[in-house]
């Protein structure tokens, strides 16, 4: 190497050494959104999980945010009974559906743990209560279960799930189980739920396949610990009457005549509230929008939590799928949540819930009689009960949304923002089949916040 070449190569090396750190530094990528815009003041209507989470994200971005909640508490359809037994009992959302969701991670991060015991479901048919292993010896039961796991391949018309079961020749002996598994768990009954919605759920569900119960914490406690910073932004007992978005700024008026002004609104109220047009929008929402509301189903849902002096069920019992007025029970104290209190939950949705609701508080007698058919007389063991009828909550009016025959793209239409000012979030606005879940509600909030902050 001659001197000239040495000098030239040294110069190249020096230049590279000087520029490399700058180049590497410029390659450093941001961990959080850093190209956001300030949307001005944001008001969120509804302090359910979707509203609380959206407020939390916006607050972290420095956005001025306020929550208007119609009821006297935050949490929406998350409601924890703290004093009914010696452990937390969920009167609303109870399971964590899937291990791959923001909600799952929030629960874990709050310090909560899940029950890990393997529990067995019991099925009542042909006059007997059978654990899953025995039920699987029945051909009709197996056909029903196989059919319930094949929605992903369904190619027919958007008929209801009961009509589909009948067309497939499901035995009448297990039709009530079909209703419990397909209809009741989705907040309605098999004759109201649409096959296309079930197919989409099968194809689009991405949250994971584990259903988990929290052992040591109530959901309300988890919300308070993880999203508590926004509780000071909530105006309770504030029933929104109208949202006027005709001007440059949005005017919100509550039932007391108070006015609130903002730049963006996130509406997170249940679909039932939108269906009944309890909030007046000015200018009025398009017919396409209001038609979309009506295409989404939401029925009454009741949870009756009952405490007994002793357990009359097998120790490994998870759910009990019955044939009477209550499609499904589960053992709330199972999995080591309590050693001394024996608690069972009756879970009744749709037409069954309407029938029981008409009985008022005497529905407990009907439920104990129903349990008696499967376990013998359990009335002497009864201690106390709590009825949570979500259809009676004036600002919720039902359990959670489901896809009716013909729902089609109604959720997408619901989720569309109006004029870049009015946004819709909440479980019913989930377009990818995570509706009817807490994590679905959270995801719609994330999507909305992402849209609002997008530059």
């Amino acid at each position, binding site marked *: 190497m001659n001197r000239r070449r040495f000098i030239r190569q040294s110069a190249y090396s020096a230049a590279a050494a000087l520029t490399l750190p700058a180049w590497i530094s410029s390659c450093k*990528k941001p961990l*959080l959104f850093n190209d956001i815009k300030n949307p001005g003041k944001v008001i969120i209507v509804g302090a359910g999980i979707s509203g609380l989470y959206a407020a939390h994200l916006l607050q972290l971005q420095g956005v001025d945010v306020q929550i208007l909640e119609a009821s006297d508490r935050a949490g929406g359809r998350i409601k924890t009974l703290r004093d009914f037994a010696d452990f937390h009992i969920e009167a609303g959302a109870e399971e964590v559906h899937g291990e791959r969701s923001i909600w799952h991670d929030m629960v874990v991060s709050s310090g909560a743990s899940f029950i890990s015991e393997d529990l067995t479901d019991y099925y009542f048919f042909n006059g007997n209560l059978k654990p899953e292993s025995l039920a699987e010896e029945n051909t009709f039961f197996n056909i029903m279960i196989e059919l319930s796991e094949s929605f992903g391949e369904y190619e027919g018309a958007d008929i209801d799930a009961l009509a589909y079961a009948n067309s497939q020749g499901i035995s009448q002996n297990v039709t009530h189980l079909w209703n419990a598994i397909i209809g009741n768990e989705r907040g309605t009954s098999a004759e109201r739920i649409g096959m296309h919605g079930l197919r989409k759920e099968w194809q689009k569900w991405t949250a994971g*396949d584990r259903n988990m119960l929290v052992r040591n914490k109530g959901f309300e406690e988890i919300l308070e610990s993880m999203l508590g910073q926004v509780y000071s932004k909530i105006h309770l007992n504030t029933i929104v009457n109208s949202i006027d978005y005709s001007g440059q700024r949005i005017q919100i008026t509550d039932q007391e005549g108070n006015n609130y002004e903002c730049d963006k609104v996130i509406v997170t109220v249940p679909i039932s509230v939108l269906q009944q047009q309890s909030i007046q929008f000015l200018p009025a929402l398009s017919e396409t929008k209001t038609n979309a509301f009506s295409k989404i189903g939401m029925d009454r849902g009741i949870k009756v939590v009952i405490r007994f002096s002793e357990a009359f069920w097998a120790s490994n019992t998870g759910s009990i799928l019955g044939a009477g007025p209550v499609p499904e029970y589960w053992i709330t104290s199972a999995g080591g949540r309590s050693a001394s209190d024996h608690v069972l939950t009756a879970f009744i949705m749709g037409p069954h819930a309407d029938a029981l609701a008409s009985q008022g508080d005497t529905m407990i007698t009907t439920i104990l009689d129903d349990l008696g058919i499967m376990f013998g007389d359990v009335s002497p063991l009864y201690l106390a009960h709590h009825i949570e009828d979500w259809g009676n909550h004036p600002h919720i009016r039902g359990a959670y949304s489901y896809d009716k025959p013909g729902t089609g793209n109604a959720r997408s239409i619901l989720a569309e923002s109006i004029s870049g000012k009015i946004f819709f979030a909440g479980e019913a606005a989930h*377009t990818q089949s995570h509706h009817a879940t807490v994590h679905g509600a959270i995801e719609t909030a*994330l999507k909305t916040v992402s849209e609002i902050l997008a530059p």
Partner: protein
Amino acid sequence: MNKRRLLILPIMLVFEWIHAQPAIQMSYRYLRANNWDEIIQTYNTSRPWNNNKLEPVTHGVGAMFCWNFPLISSRSESLTSRALHLNSKLGYHQFGSSAENNNIPFKAGFHQFEVSIDLRTHPKCLFKPVQNTGALGTRYYIGFGASFNALMPFVRSNGDLISNGDGEKYLERTFHFSGQFNTGYHLLMIGNTAITVEIAAIWFGHAELEAFAESVNGHNLSGMRNESTSTLMIQGALRLTLLKANKNWWDNPRSGDKS
């Protein structure tokens, strides 16, 4: 082009395959694409309680098996003595990012499988003949190529590959074409092997990110800012080639190596 010429081309390729030189390449790839980053940013933003944030998926490492065909070289002097080499490659790279929160390790990334071909030459060879352009052509080269890629996103939570709604492992595949420009330098020869360094720019005109968004965030709601994107990868690679012919630039570097 008449039928005879069309026939000559595959015959030439088969002939050249016999003389192909196998190589193994270890490479590092740097991914630069805003929408890929936004998926990770969405994950981080959606979990503000996580102390350890997930880094954007940026770094990928992998290996490629290569076959170098001296398409036109000094051994086919009847055509021309300009060097033109065809390279076919079969490769795998893995891109990933990880963070641990609440004692749960979380890793997100994607597998990249690719089949590619590229043509290499020396810039000077484009305009004038170069002597002794044997097994590897000139010492310095530039190349252009195209690849067919399969991208498979993955997420491992607590060591387990996440599953979809059916309980199956979530590895949704998407397929994409990419183009690339590369430039390299045959660094040295040890025995019958040559060591080459190469840098490349790989461009995906369109990469579907729905599967990646779903795998990382558990969902991909339409309207989120991460559905598809153009993607640039910068690659640095070290290649070890097994030489079959010995008529190379190092046999007579003064006359053969014009680079």
